[in-house]
């Protein structure tokens, strides 16, 4: 396949970026999208040009590092995949592909297609944990009875890899799907109940401080999420928040 790529280039967070056009040929339909980017970068390096910076790590849809906005969609046109799981067979010979970084004020561009998603880390640090005694007396989680549906829902929420596709896809750059998944995975389990009140209040507070937008229930996040995190989690977070607001001192 021969493709035309329009790729966002930006030297660093201080300068303005813009789209640059590249042509690439001999692209195999069996390549992953990141492999195609690797080939392009090889060509750029051989020409003495600066290769395109993009995030990647596991390349098997687990780590949540890859983060491109491809032809108007986070992680490209396929469903339930990350960019590393997207294959070039999803495109046609002669296609023009526009590649931009995930855009949100809370995700500033570091370079080219690499964005700083440490705002997610700070939200996690605000309450996305349980305080347990790790001195050797920790209770075996398997000995705590948990209703099957709750365990399944908690696991579904915990599959969120924190890639930020929800933020990138949302017209408001809202992070509520991510935060609600993290709130839900603890709220559904007995271990998480002890700190539930402060957790949801603190995580939402941090989310707002990071400059994410408000959720308007467009549902774009759920559709674009590579892990299929459901909007049910946002409804659960809203209930948790309402209850916590009333209970908190």
């Amino acid at each position: 396949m021969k493709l035309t790529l329009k790729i966002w280039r930006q030297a660093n967070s201080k300068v303005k970026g813009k789209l640059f056009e590249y042509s690439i040929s001999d692209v195999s339909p069996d390549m992953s999208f990141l492999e195609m980017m690797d080939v392009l970068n090889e060509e750029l390096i051989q020409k003495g040009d600066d290769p395109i910076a993009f995030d990647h790590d596991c390349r098997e849809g687990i780590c949540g590092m890859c983060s491109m906005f491809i032809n108007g969609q986070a992680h490209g046109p396929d469903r339930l995949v990350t960019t590393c799981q997207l294959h070039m067979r999803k495109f046609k010979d002669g296609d023009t592909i526009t590649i931009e970084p995930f855009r949100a004020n809370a995700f500033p561009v570091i370079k080219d297609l690499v964005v700083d998603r440490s705002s997610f880390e700070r939200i996690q640090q605000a309450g996305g944990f349980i305080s347990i005694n790790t001195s050797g007396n920790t209770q075996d989680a398997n000995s705590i009875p948990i209703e099957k549906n709750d365990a399944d829902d908690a696991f579904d929420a915990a599959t969120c890899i924190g890639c930020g596709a929800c933020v990138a896809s949302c017209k408001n750059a809202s992070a509520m799907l991510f935060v609600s998944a993290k709130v839900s995975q603890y709220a559904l389990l007995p271990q998480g109940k002890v700190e539930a009140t402060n957790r949801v209040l603190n995580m939402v507070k941090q989310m707002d401080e990071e400059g994410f937008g408000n959720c308007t229930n467009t549902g774009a996040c759920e559709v674009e999420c590579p892990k299929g995190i459901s909007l049910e989690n946002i409804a659960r977070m809203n209930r948790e928040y309402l209850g916590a607001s009333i209970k908190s001192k």
Partner: protein
Amino acid sequence: MISSSVSRKITMAISGLFLVIFLAQHFTINITSVFSEKTFNELSHFMGTNPLVQFVLQPILIFGVVYHFLMGFYLEIINRSSRNIKYSFYKGSSNSSWMSRNMIISGLVILSFLGLHFYDFWFPEIDYKYLKILPENPERYYEELVHKFNNPIRVVLYVISFVFLALHLLHGFDSAFQSIGVNNKYSIAIKKGTTIFSLIIPLGFVFIALFHYLNHG
């Protein structure tokens, strides 16, 4: 409490649900004008003169309307400013409905309509009752209604507004349940019910406007 994004969302939903209830009540009274002049006059007279409606429910309604649109504008400003550099290619239609992405547009049309509607009915009513303090005539309401729908331009503006009301409700009514935390086994039934309401009520208002224009215009 409304300092956080979640609480703003919840209050937006509650005010919206309140306005939906008002809409259903307004429609119920208006549709009687198609079947019975007498019933319409009686109901309108009751609503226009009952102290509980006039001095308790009406101020609550005005607060609900003002809160809903002021918060809507505020949220729109915050949301737009949360992404300073826009995408050069954003394919919103691939993952969300036009209605859900453009609530501000349908909302602005409804707000403009409210201006016209107040000019047509509410301001003259306030003038009649509280400024000129004219003697109450329980028979006047039907004539006032019919008179307004003589004008084809007004009828067209009303019909356009009701179309946008339907678009606003198609996303907003169902979305309000999600905002207050209702997303469960009943959600499919809620979605169907809110969709039917969102189509029936605005189309019913269109019918009323066209009925009076065609029969009395």
